[in-house]
């Protein structure tokens, strides 16, 4: 029977795709989260409802179901999507819903007086957000966003169900060949942690600096 160490090599071949899914989906989510957050707090009711519907729908259905829908559903409509783009796009769409809520919480954490002060000195709305609001909101946004990325790293494993060749899919493949479940999945676990732990460390480091920048001179 092979040991855990023997599987580290073969499974590492999936790291690239795991990272691609994680950061690709996060990138999409971070980008589309902005218009969704704006829609969520828009003054025009239909737009607001649309934002609410998006967030609730994407968060209310398990990611694994969304990936099946993205992959097989689209295929049924005659739209062929490869498993990697489907995984990145599907998890990206879900991330958009979560990021929108994180952004909203960040904006709400900035005191109303900051908006007033920025407007009172004649900044335009875009200038206000760029130079006054976002630099403050980011302190609130960053920690949950990083927690979300690390969660996404683990959730990327479900992309295996639609055939994306990431770490978990390779582990499942190995398992079917050798029937040695435990060492294979222990090896997979070690690889996930090897990516996740430094990510957590970096995020705490950045968080401390962001907070310090806002707190004092």
């Amino acid at each position: 029977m092979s040991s855990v160490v023997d599987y580290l090599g073969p499974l590492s071949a999936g790291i690239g795709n795991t990272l691609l899914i994680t950061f690709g989906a996060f990138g999409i989510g971070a980008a589309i989260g902005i218009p969704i957050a704006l829609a969520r707090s828009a003054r025009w009711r239909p737009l607001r409802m649309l934002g609410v519907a998006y967030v609730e729908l994407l968060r209310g259905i398990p990611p694994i179901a969304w990936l099946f829908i993205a992959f097989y559903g689209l295929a049924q409509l005659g739209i062929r999507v490869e498993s990697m783009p489907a995984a990145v796009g599907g998890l990206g769409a879900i991330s958009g819903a979560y990021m929108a809520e994180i952004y909203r919480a960040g904006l709400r954490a900035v005191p109303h007086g900051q908006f007033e002060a920025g407007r009172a000195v004649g900044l335009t709305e875009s200038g206000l957000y760029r130079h006054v609001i976002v630099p403050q909101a980011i302190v609130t946004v960053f920690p949950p966003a990083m927690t979300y990325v690390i969660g996404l790293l683990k959730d990327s494993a479900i992309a295996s169900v639609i055939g994306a060749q990431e770490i978990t899919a390779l582990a499942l493949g190995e398992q079917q060949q050798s029937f040695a479940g435990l060492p294979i999945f222990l090896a997979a676990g070690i690889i996930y942690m090897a990516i996740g732990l430094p990510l957590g460390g970096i995020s705490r480091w950045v968080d401390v600096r962001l907070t310090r920048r806002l707190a004092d001179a």
Partner: protein
Amino acid sequence: MEVQGLGKAFGPHRALEDVSLSVAAGEVVGIIGPSGSGKSTLLRCINHLEQPTSGRVLIDGVPIADPGGREPSAKELAALRRKVGMVFQSFNLFPHLTAVENVMLAQVKALGRPKQEARARALELLERVGIADKADSRPRRCSGGQQQRIAIARALALDPRVMLFDEPTSALDPELGLEVLGVMRELASDGMTMIVVTHEMHFAEEVADRIVFMADGRIVEEGPPRQVMRAPRHERTRRFLRAVLDR
């Protein structure tokens, strides 16, 4: 600067009703009145942080906007606000920027001044309000009185035509308040046009050219400080002044 028939309703509640006020260049107008009488709302309507429901505001004879007509565009609003400096009760400095950056930001981003020039001007203003030594500190490292003086410098940096002060000292210990009042006194004697909402009756009487007393969203009476404060014509004013001076 002129305010004509300004009205503001929050739903059914009328916070301001038909307020007209004209302020000459270099004049200092003190606004006093009980809590909830609409003093803050008036200041916030003047620079359109709050959109007035009726009436209009003119600066140098140019109307800012015609309510009832269209809302001013974002560009027009930003342009207007550069002519009107505002100082808040709670300072509202930008916490992520140092004192000098606070004073520079709008010069660079709103007026388009070159950074070097904006910095020089910011340092000059911080010097003028007596806190040049705090230029590179963030607001949290400054006392309340220092923060409010930075806020005054920030507003002055745009070379506004008129400065609005909304209870600038009421969040401060009396001693720190004095620093701020000192700066305002100097501004007034330098000829700055100012509208000051305040509960500091002595300051109002000493510095203001005219006192406006407001109650229930209206101007009840106005006149020279001595007259309004020592010999008010209206019972409502008398009642308010008794309550304040008895304390």
